[in-house]
């Protein structure tokens, strides 16, 4: 009897051993692949970061992709202050601030409008509100270049040509489809009974919005702000077409930088400039990334 038990135990152990070995192998394969893919993704960033600390001479001698044998911070202030772009030797600072003064108001306004739109389209439906929503959805799928000429014309009429304010307006409107979609879909999951209760309690449109809807909204506000901030910051087409010279956002200026045809390519400074241009969205992802994922997967009512 005891032997039989032992025997089956032994058999089980053998099977368990095979299973655990199989598990180990599959783990190794999975993690190996993941590591490989992460390295593949991180290499461009690593190259740029490393090059921003190497001397140009060293880059010239050892090639663009190689480990540094010197460390130097000079490229960073140079890129910020006095690198020459399009004949102006002021670095990327001006363009960086252009981008900031474009992205901050555009993000705030488009998010706020999206919240109000979403609130109306989900909770205060009116005859035809679904059609309005359908039309706004169209904007999600419409490529930006279609709107280039109309925008150029409109900004001209408004006297906002080649100005940062013009770009703020463009991004507010262009972003509205997405922000409205985000908020509307999030607010749909808020039970209508809440609003009915609030109406009986004597609250109106705005009081319900501020006291009940907005306190439920942080997850979707974070998602929308991250989406808009990175989208607007990284946007290139409108910046390069609608604005020129010293009014361009940093994405457009970086292109001018790479084409500022001096004889020597200053890879160190260019790397630093690119990194300066990429820093804000990177930081936003870095600090807000987990809220982004959480917000996308979370309903309004826990």
């Amino acid at each position, binding site marked *: 009897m005891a032997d039989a038990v032992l025997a089956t135990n032994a058999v089980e152990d053998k099977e368990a051993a095979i299973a655990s070995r199989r598990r180990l192998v599959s783990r190794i394969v999975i993690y190996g692949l993941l590591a490989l893919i992460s390295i593949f993704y991180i290499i461009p960033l690593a190259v740029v970061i490393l090059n921003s600390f190497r001397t140009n001479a060293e880059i010239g001698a050892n090639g663009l992709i190689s480990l540094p044998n010197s460390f130097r911070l000079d490229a960073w202030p140079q890129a910020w202050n006095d690198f020459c772009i399009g004949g102006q030797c002021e670095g990327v600072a001006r363009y960086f601030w252009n981008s900031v003064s474009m992205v901050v108001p555009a993000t705030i306004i488009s998010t706020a409008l999206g919240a109000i739109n979403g609130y109306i389209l989900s909770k205060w439906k009116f005859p035809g509100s679904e059609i309005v929503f359908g039309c706004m959805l169209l904007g999600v799928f419409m490529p930006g270049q279609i709107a280039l000429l109309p925008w150029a014309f409109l900004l001209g009429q408004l006297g906002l040509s080649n100005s940062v304010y013009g770009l703020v307006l463009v991004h507010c409107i262009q972003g509205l489809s997405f922000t409205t979609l985000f908020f509307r879909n999030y607010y749909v999951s808020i039970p209508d009974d*809440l609003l009915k*209760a609030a109406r009986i*309690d004597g609250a109106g449109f705005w009081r319900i919005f501020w006291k009940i809807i907005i306190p439920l909204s942080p997850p979707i506000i974070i998602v929308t702000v991250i989406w808009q901030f990175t989208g607007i910051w990284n946007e290139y087409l409108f910046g390069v077409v609608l604005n020129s010279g010293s009014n361009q956002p940093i994405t457009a200026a970086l292109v001018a930088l790479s084409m500022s045809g001096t004889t020597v390519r200053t890879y160190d400074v260019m790397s630093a400039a690119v990194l300066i241009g990429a820093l804000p969205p990177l930081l936003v992802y870095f600090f807000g990334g987990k809220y982004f994922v959480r917000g996308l997967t979370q309903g309004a009512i826990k």
Partner: protein
Amino acid sequence: MASLTIRNLRKSFGVVEVLKGVDLEANTGEFIALVGPSGCGKSTLLAMIAGLETVTSGEIYIGDRLVNSVQPKDRDIAMVFQSYALYPTMSVKENMAFGMESRGVPRAEQEKTIARVAALLQIEPFLKRKPGQLSGGQRQRVAMGRALVRDPALFLFDEPLSNLDAKLRVDMRTEIKKLHQRIGKTTIYVTHDQVEAMTLASRIAVMHLGEVQQFADPDTVYNRPANTFVAGFMGSPSMNFIDAEITSAGGVPAVNFPLSGGGVASLPLYNGVADRAQSKKVILGIRPEHLSRQSPSNSGKQGIATMSAPVEVVEPTGAETMAVLRFGDREVVGRFSPDEAPKTGENMPLAVDMTRACLFDPATTRLI
């Protein structure tokens, strides 16, 4: 005085008419239950009383004020929702204060009212908690508390107990009844549960297909149902319906219906009901509890008819035993006390309490 008067109220969504001319009134302090199966229009009716749905035609008066186009907040009502609809980001106290803040009630008075209602409902320990931290029963209490701070002319309840488990539902039902007895406010209570309606209401409006089928006190609704729908809806297990024919053998009116063995059951009728029937064909309605085992004590009594029927299924529930009996091509449910319960396969001798039986007109389904 009437707290609520509804006259010929209609509601259509597009071409679909969900309320087809409802008349209703509630006297001050009354507890009115609107009961009916889902889709009967009871919740729409309540929403229209609350002002959350527009009126297609007809009139709603709260007190003597026509409120057809008055905003919900100005109707002097308070409502408890099925989902409780507590504001999830606010504490219990803030939930209760929200309406008073909207109406600009001074803070000191708010505090006093909340303290009074919280004591009444025994929710003081959770005043600082968020709704998410409360159990179903506690949320239910808070939802009632939010309604009670208002001191309205009319309380509206929309299936407030259907999200609770069975035991808690019975407890809360008792509490609602106690509460109503204590504060005596006119209450309109929507439910699909006929037991809730029977136990709580002073009058019941049974609704079906957008119409009020019967509006009467619970006793009348149960014992003299206006039609076969009301008769079948109220009571569980529901009333048994048997197609039968009125005869008068030797001057004694009776209802006859065929039995399975080829025989005919003939049950005598009383109270002159046979004279009121328009045709010979009727539907005989017998509630399960009006069947009992024949015994010397009941078989000879006035109004008790006797017959026997084979037993097909026996379902003991502890306190009582349900049995499915075969009456011809009909299955009939009987409710017996366990000590007189039949056995499966038995040909049970039955005593039928014909004084409580109902006859319905097969053409109109109305009570005769």
